[in-house]
């Protein structure tokens, strides 16, 4: 059973807290019109995100989806340029051209979040192909939801990477809903069990609020991949506390009222704080201090973003190609 050192555990909690604080702030900012468009928060899913990213090395690659902030934060991306990106500022990690849906930070191996459900799955496979062809020892991980698990390209990718033994991990964040649609109404069979037919291991982490359980499962898959033994599919059962996207109001109650309450009792941040105190012997004060530190970090990120200029309009006409500017 792969596990984390004491320092790594604190780092894990730090990253989970970052995601929570960043997303809570972003949610408010959307509602106040300080972030254009909308955002999809990972609030409630922090253990699943960080359990996975902590299992990756710095040079390992990652692709993600619309529920996009947790992934780069979990991978170690600094908050300022991420927040600036959400606001569309020139200092944004994508110069303001991507926005929440299309965060990418190549410095930490984040190859990009995707607004198109399922579309970034084979991107991670491609990064794994690079590793294999060029003889690197990096692995790649694709984050996607239970909804995305019904996109055909996932199975094309599982098959192709299975045949080639590519070092890639398919990580399904099963938060049990795709927008308004309960997973069980549109999913035949069990996602994790789909791996077997493609000749690769399929693991279901039933308690995705348990950071260590996720870390263990993903670490096993990462080690396997690094040994050249090929891909794995990991389905992590989790829950999002917020609406699909911030500000969205649906007429229908597609989630039972008491369901959220039950999951709130298993808040991954609270659970891991307790673990750090009871098992690792940290004090409540130390934990409070960490939480305060992270809030300050998010404040600083927002300040950085607020103080940043808007991109010059000409930036909108750059970077389509490598070799030329747009000439109308």
């Amino acid at each position: 059973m792969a596990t984390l050192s004491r320092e790594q555990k604190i780092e894990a909690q730090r990253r989970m807290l970052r995601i929570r604080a960043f997303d809570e702030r972003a949610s408010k900012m959307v509602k106040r019109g300080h972030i254009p468009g909308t955002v999809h928060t990972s609030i409630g899913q922090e253990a699943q995100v960080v359990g996975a990213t902590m299992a990756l090395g710095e040079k390992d690659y990652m692709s993600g989806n619309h529920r996009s902030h947790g992934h780069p934060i979990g991978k170690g991306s600094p908050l300022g340029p991420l927040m600036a990106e959400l606001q569309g500022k020139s200092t944004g990690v994508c110069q303001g051209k991507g926005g929440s849906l299309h965060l990418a930070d190549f410095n930490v191996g984040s190859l990009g979040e995707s607004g198109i459900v399922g579309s970034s799955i084979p991107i991670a496979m491609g990064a794994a192909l690079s590793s294999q062809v060029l003889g690197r020892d990096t692995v790649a991980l694709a984050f996607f939801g239970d909804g995305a698990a019904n996109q055909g390209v996932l199975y094309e990718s599982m098959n192709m990477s299975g045949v080639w033994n590519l070092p890639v991990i398919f990580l399904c964040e099963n938060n049990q809903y795709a927008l308004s649609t309960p997973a069980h109404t549109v999913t035949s069979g069990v996602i994790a069990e789909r791996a077997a037919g493609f000749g690769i291991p399929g693991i279901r982490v039933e308690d995705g609020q348990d950071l260590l359980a996720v870390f263990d499962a993903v670490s096993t898959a990462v080690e396997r991949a690094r040994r050249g033994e090929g891909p794995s599919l990991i389905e992590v059962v989790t829950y999002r506390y917020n609406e699909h996207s911030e500000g969205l109001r649906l007429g229908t109650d597609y989630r039972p009222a008491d369901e959220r309450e039950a999951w709130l009792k298993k808040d991954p941040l609270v659970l891991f704080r307790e673990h750090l105190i009871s098992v690792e012997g940290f004090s409540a004060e130390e934990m409070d201090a960490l939480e305060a530190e992270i809030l300050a970090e998010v404040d600083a990120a927002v300040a950085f973003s607020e103080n940043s200029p808007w991109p010059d309009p000409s930036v909108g006409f750059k970077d389509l190609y490598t070799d030329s500017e747009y000439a109308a």
Partner: protein
Amino acid sequence: MSVMSFLGAIGAAQKEAMDADERVIIIGEDVEANVYGTTGGGKTRQETGDFVQMYGRNRIRNTPISEEGIVGAAAGAAMTGLRPIVDLSYSSFLYMAMDQLVNQVAKNRYMFGGQASMPAVFRSAMFYGLNTGAHHSDRPYPMFMNAPGLKIMVPSTPSDAKGLLRTAIDMNDPVLTFEACILWGLKEEVNDDEFWIPFGVARTHREGTDVTIVAISSSVHEALAAATELETEGISVEVIDPRTLVPLDKRAILNSVAKTGRLVVVEPAHRTCGAAGEISAIVAEEVFDSLKAPIIRITAPDMQIPFSPSLEKQMYPNKQDIVAAVRKITQKDKERVLA
């Protein structure tokens, strides 16, 4: 008559068609919860009534996220007795189902020598101008215009949306609708009775004698605003909305340009190989001798859509661009050439 929003008009047409013909079904992601507001049953999104309650889950099919499978299923269903309305939500998701749309939906009837017909409607919304970034801002109707076998509607008013969509649903050929999301809230008096607007008949929103503007989707409103401004300068502008791009009402466009001698074409799609280029080429071939000035296209540039509000807004045709273009081609010829 009652006041309907653009979105409400789409819902109303769907409801009428569901009531009129049991073979009509709705299939798509999140249609059950009426996420996009057109399966709520009423004239507006808020109005009471829910399609699932009214028609049941047999006819309102909430799907997995599997665009290719959904479109393929609709194609097979259309060939065997149903008349599916497929809700693909964003136009940017059509690429996921491109093989089914181009290789099956568009080709089957022809390839099979007329044995099959394909009465299916594929609805999608173009979310441009709303800071949704490059993955959610596509306006890809020109690509589909290059695929013979599909019909294409691009309504710009609630009435047109209702009447054209009803025609589309009742038609035996596949239709793609492209709804401009920024028009969803637009309201006007719409006939509550059933009505059908024929495909291939342009709507002349405003008559004029000096310049013809052909405008597509949301650009119609920019063109009308420009025309009002130009009127104060003594320039008389005719504004034509083709409403359907396949079939295209060439006659209306050619007659207008034959009269005015000048053409500006405005659309929100990318410039290269867009509908504006097509309309320009038709005119340059068929009524060349009537033309008194260059044909101007005002389109989105050949650039992806950036997220930041400070970057995105410059990407679409606006009133000022149209006004400037019209001024330029209505200058006396000499000035124009020197300019």
